[in-house]
């Protein structure tokens, strides 16, 4: 499986034997409620991995460069899509969207989790997660 640039956060996801990522989340031991990102509280939360596929719940396009901080991306700005994806019947996760034209996303579109390179302002690349359309919806 290919090496990736360092993860932007070590607690964000893990990669299976096939190299594909799964987001890490917490399941509250008392209530069964699933939360993302994984809280640093193993007594209260059991670590679980989230389904890799789901459907697009909502979306938009970030068309101006966010203020830094907190934004850590490079000065050269390209608009990007963001959305919420319902992963099975577990949780709805927000992330960047990739793999399709900015105005081609549609609610209920089938989506899958992918890794995505993210270039920081200092030129270093980190690996984050994103969601991409599955099958015919992909570009």
């Amino acid at each position, binding site marked *: 499986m290919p090496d990736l640039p360092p993860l932007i956060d070590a607690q964000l996801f893990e990669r299976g034997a096939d190299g594909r990522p799964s987001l890490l989340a917490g399941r509250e031991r008392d209530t069964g409620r699933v939360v993302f990102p994984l809280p640093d509280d193993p007594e209260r939360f059991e670590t679980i991995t989230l389904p890799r596929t789901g459907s697009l719940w909502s979306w*938009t396009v970030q068309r101006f460069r966010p203020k830094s901080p907190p934004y850590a*991306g490079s000065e050269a700005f390209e608009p990007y899509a963001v959305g919420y994806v319902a992963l099975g019947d*577990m949780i709805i996760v927000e992330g960047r969207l990739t793999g399709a034209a900015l105005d081609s996303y549609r609610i209920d579109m089938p989506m899958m989790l992918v890794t995505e390179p993210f270039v920081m302002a200092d030129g270093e690349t980190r690996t*984050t997660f994103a969601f991409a359309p599955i099958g015919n919806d992909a570009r």
Partner: protein
Amino acid sequence: MSDVFIIGAGIHPFGRTPARSGLQQGVYAVRQALAGAGLEWRDMQFAFGGSDAAGKADTMVSELGLTGIQFINVANGCATGGSAMFGAYSTIKSGEFDLGIAIGFDKHPRGAFDPKPAEWGLPEWYGETGLMLTTQFFAMKIQRYMAMHGITSNSLAAVAEKAFDNGVLADHAWRREPVDRETILNATMVSDPLTKFMFCSPAEGAVALIFASERRARELGLPAVRLRAAAVRSRPPGSFEVFAPALDIARGSSPTVIASRAAYEMAGVSPEDIDVAQLQDTETGAEIMHMAENGFCADGEQEAWIAEGRTRIQGSLPVNTDGGCLACGEPIGASGLRQVYENYRQLTGNAGARQVPGAPRLGYSHVYGAPGVSAVAILER
């Protein structure tokens, strides 16, 4: 227990005033409110005041007078003004004091807000990778709402068009030029489906409201409106809020829905009774969704309401008669009190060119903000 009345109101024009600090704008609003009511600062027994980004309210005593007043600073994000008002309401209602003031002011730099992840209990990557923007939240909430309930972009634009038309008529508004619907729709897209004319901007401004008990209001003989309800509520499970890396699959209601219900119950009135409403319009979709969340119509009915002009000043339920946040901008600490100021002017018949016809009796105001808080007030003439 006393009923609570608003007997005076002052405002510093919203927008940009480079020559005055946020605190100075607050002092301006206080002086205007006092002058209008024929009262002195030393008559005030208590004050609640706050800003989100423009300093500590209680320092304005050095301008207004060192009377030893009980002055409580309020810092509650977007609900700062609403919380100051709730403080004043409770103080009078309890009988502790019978005359006091609530003040909200702010002054923000240009452009979108730039929150820090750690201050919101969020990991750094959420901000670093460009997910921590209020504009994204508002866009994604209305994007889904449009798909679920058949709201069109034309209605988004109609709400902005109305806001700018009303702003032309409001002395305290920031944007006082009409903008037509085509221009709004074809303007630069900020966060799909919202163009730049569909978002409000951070701004500056200040509002002061004078509160009195029923007995004191009668003695003073000033134009007075009764505060029938004041409710501040935080978020219930399953609500969709700003800065959420994930949402529960089981969807719930919203802080607005529960604050609204609480306020109607306190006031003993229902949505059909309301004559004029000021609803949080951070962007045009928010006004549309808040019409339903505050009980004025069912989800999806806004499309017909807007097409028929029902929320315009001459309509059956005028909404955001001073142009709301879209025309006035959003100085966080002052924004919620501006809505109450506007209802006070409307109910006392002093709203000038934007006066709602037919002598409105009940005014409703609703402010919403991060991380999921809503404040609702109902005023009665």
